[in-house]
């Protein structure tokens, strides 16, 4: 029973903090019953807890404690991180091992090849009017994220394992590119502020003939973002522009 309890405690770490105590109480109570009546299935029962915990984590409304709402604050934060990573690399005297197979262009290429397997590359459907601003913001983010990944890998390698620096670099580039794309899709294309008020629309059992996903709102009233629960060829992320007549419903600070 001790092993099963440890499994449940491990799984409970995946549950959102507000639900963790109740979740653990529910599963522990069932485990107590199973252990008395069907002990051979107790471990298999507890392993299912991970899936339940992941479901709760995935469907918990996120409260980002660190939102980087505006484009300016996001870029300022990234610039500060890049500077911090660079200064730390200088202080540690970190150097990339001279291995030609891990030259920066090759590492970037490998990271870009891996990227489609970890995130959706499609930006979704947006109005053409804001294209230059959105692409400029994305380019600026990537320009700041590349040194973060590079110097961050150097710093971690110098602190932990220098021989893993090149591998850390690939992982770092994939992670920052993925974050850049995910962050881009969560921003209003007009003002580049983070979208808010996620609302689940539809029913998961109606996936085939009806739309099921999340709707996000620009707090300045520029529009709505519809994000499908499952991206497919016929259902992509879509921006719905609102005209000026809607602005009075929002906090008008433009």
């Amino acid at each position: 029973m001790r092993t099963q309890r440890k499994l449940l405690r491990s799984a409970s770490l995946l549950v959102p903090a507000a639900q963790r105590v109740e979740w653990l109480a529910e599963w522990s109570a069932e485990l107590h019953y199973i252990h008395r009546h069907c002990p051979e299935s107790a471990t298999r029962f507890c392993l299912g807890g991970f899936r339940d915990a992941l479901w709760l984590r995935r469907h918990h409304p996120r409260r980002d404690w660190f939102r980087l709402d505006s484009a300016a604050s996001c870029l300022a934060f990234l610039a500060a991180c890049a500077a911090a990573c660079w200064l730390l690399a200088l202080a540690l005297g970190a150097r990339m091992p001279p291995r030609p197979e891990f030259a920066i262009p090759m590492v970037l290429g490998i990271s870009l090849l891996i990227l489609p397997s970890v995130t959706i590359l499609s930006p979704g459907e947006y109005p053409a009017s804001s294209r230059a601003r959105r692409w400029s913001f994305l380019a600026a983010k990537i320009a700041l994220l590349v040194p973060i990944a590079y110097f961050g890998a150097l710093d971690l390698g110098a602190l932990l394992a220098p021989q893993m620096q090149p591998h850390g670099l690939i992982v770092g580039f994939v992670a920052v590119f993925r974050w850049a794309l995910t962050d881009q899709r969560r921003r209003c294309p007009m003002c580049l502020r983070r979208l808010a008020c996620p609302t689940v629309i539809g029913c998961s059992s109606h996936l085939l003939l009806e739309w099921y996903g999340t709707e996000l709102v620009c707090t300045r009233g520029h529009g709505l973002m519809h994000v499908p629960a499952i991206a497919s060829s016929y259902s992509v992320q879509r921006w719905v522009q609102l005209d000026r007549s809607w602005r009075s419903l929002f906090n008008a600070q433009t």
Partner: protein
Amino acid sequence: MADGPKLSHTAAMILQAIQAGDGYGFSVMEMTGLPSGTVYPAMRRLERDELIRSQWERQSIADAEQRPPRRYYRLTRAGRAALEASQKRYPLLAKLAEVERP
């Protein structure tokens, strides 16, 4: 006119198990033969869709049997309607319901 949510076979089985059994997670697993990793997330979805409702049993009942209190699930009115509709869609489910009735 909305017909209400169309349930998957798994969700319908779980609803039927909740109605026919004690409403605890493990009893649903025993009746349906589904693993815990399937049953519990499905019950979360059903509760979110307001087809079932959960409630902790009273501490006095658990204390009397010297065990921790359990959480049990019951069908809501919408859940009963959804189950009836599912029994029409899935004839085998309706047959299982007849077998379960005394």
